[in-house]
């Protein structure tokens, strides 16, 4: 069991050695190095876990996934480098991707940074505006009367469909891209916040009123807390929409960021770099998702035991 990862590493390593005999040594060098590292770390962990129960539990949980991931690299090597089942240059082997990742790391890091800045500014703006408009629509019947039709008509338009207009209206592509991301986030956040607020249990509001609550208490201390589970659904949907809008906006207008990097690398037919950027995106976006999950778990700790997460 503890040896699954080292064994998988050796298998994948063997596959690579078998197929990379006629590949340039420069390409495989860092990939080999990575294998030695994985092998070393996994052996150290396999030894350490016999003294450390917490580590053993973690390993028992994670080991199958790690094993599968490493074997996946081997399979990837077989179908690309080994039997050329996928056309080159579109599908390079794992070693070539790793080399692109390392050799172009400065530009990739810079692109990630630009994407993060753009995403966060757009997302934050969208969330703030969405929360305010959602609370207003959810609480006040007259705001709902005018706001809901607008929301229902304008909201479902994909934010990316506004790109031609946004590029004309705004002085800089960065600003218009941030605005589009905000728009993409605004719709689900407003929708879910409004429905959460308007579905606040009437008896909570009744109880609060008999305790002497005024309007501010009813909105900020009853309706909004009651709507938080719904609001988080909106925040998750908004985050997904913001990734999509970010990448599209970067690949058509903005001259920086990971989306731009992908289309730039594609222009030069450097597909190793395309895959490298995709790997970075996967890590980047899933980290943000995980972060939002952590925030939710902290804020909704009172739900623990009521609903299954």
């Amino acid at each position, binding site marked *: 069991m503890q040896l699954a990862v080292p064994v998988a590493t050796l298998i994948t390593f063997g596959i690579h050695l078998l197929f990379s005999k006629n590949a340039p040594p420069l390409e495989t060098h860092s990939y080999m190095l990575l294998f030695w590292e994985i092998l070393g770390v996994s052996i150290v962990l396999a030894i350490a876990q016999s003294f450390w129960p917490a580590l053993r539990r973690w390993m028992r949980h994670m080991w199958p996934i790690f094993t599968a991931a490493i074997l996946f690299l081997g399979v990837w090597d077989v179908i690309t480098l080994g039997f050329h089942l996928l056309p080159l240059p579109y599908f390079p082997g794992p070693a070539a991707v790793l080399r692109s990742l390392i050799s172009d790391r400065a530009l990739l890091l810079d692109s990630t940074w630009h994407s993060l800045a753009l995403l966060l500014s757009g997302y934050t703006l969208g969330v703030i505006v969405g929360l305010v408009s959602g609370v207003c629509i959810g609480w006040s019947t007259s705001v709902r009367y005018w706001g809901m039709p607008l929301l229902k008509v304008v909201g479902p338009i994909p934010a990316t469909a506004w790109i031609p207009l946004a590029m004309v209206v705004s002085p800089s592509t960065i600003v218009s891209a941030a605005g589009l991301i905000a728009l993409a986030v605004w719709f689900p956040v407003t929708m879910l916040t409004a429905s959460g607020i308007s579905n606040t*249990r009437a*008896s*909570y509001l*009744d*109880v*609060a*009123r*008999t*305790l*002497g*609550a*005024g309007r501010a*208490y009813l909105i900020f*201390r*009853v309706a909004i*807390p*009651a709507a*938080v589970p719904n609001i988080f659904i909106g925040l998750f949907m908004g985050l997904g929409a913001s990734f999509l809008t970010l990448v599209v906006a970067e690949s058509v207008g903005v001259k920086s960021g990971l989306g731009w990097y992908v289309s730039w690398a594609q222009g030069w037919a450097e597909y190793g770099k395309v895959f490298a950027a995709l790997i970075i995106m996967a890590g980047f976006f899933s980290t943000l998702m995980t972060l939002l999950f952590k925030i939710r778990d902290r804020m909704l*700790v*009172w*739900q*623990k*035991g*009521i609903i299954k997460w």
Partner: protein
Amino acid sequence: MVALAETEASSLRVREVSKSFPAPDDPFTRRQALSDISLSIAAGELVSLIGPSGCGKSTLLRLIAGLDFADSGDLLIGSEPISEPGAERGLVFQDPNLFPWLTVRRNIEAGLVARGVLREKRNEVDEFMRLVALEAFGDAYPHHLSGGMAQRVALARALINHPKVLLLDEPLGALDAFTRMRMQDEVLRLWQTRRTTILFVTHDIDEAIYMSDRIMIMTQPPGRIDQTIANTLPRPRDRSSPEFLRLRGNILELLHFAGNAPAANST
């Protein structure tokens, strides 16, 4: 008793109150929920309101709480007409309706926060947590509490505002029989230590006899107060004493549920 309640010492008065609602199936007709209800409760009294479901007990309580408005008639606290909900009339429902996102302590504090007096009265929170014996559960969230504990939190949350009148809408109705009897004693203890006027809505005759100074019987619909029975049994009351059972038989008869002999175990 009734005569005393009509005097100036009376803390809650309801005079010829009527209330109707639009019929759910036909918006053009209105269904009479309460018709010419009059009652008055003296300060410090514990009065029960019993009657079958749907006779308008909860409607009357919502009017007194200020959550709904009467079509006609007067509702007074002391000499003040009731126009909106207020902290001087505490309300506890059958469902404790604790705010699930707040801990027990924060739930009990809610009334102080709502009135903006938490800073001056923070020390009272501990006092009320002790009063309902929940000091150890201050940081627990409501869904970790049993039904009886949750209802004690709801009582403390209502009592921390020092209401002149406590309105209890079948507060023990969802509890199992044993918890229920224990909570009856708990409510009595709170009433005896704090001398809060209590209007206690229930559909459990035994509960009404065990707890209250007077029992008002409502009939349906439209809701009217049919009879008011003074209950002078000495406290603490014995649920199986002959006097208790005799009173129970009388009330069952008034509600047309009595057989030839006083029923022993119907509620």
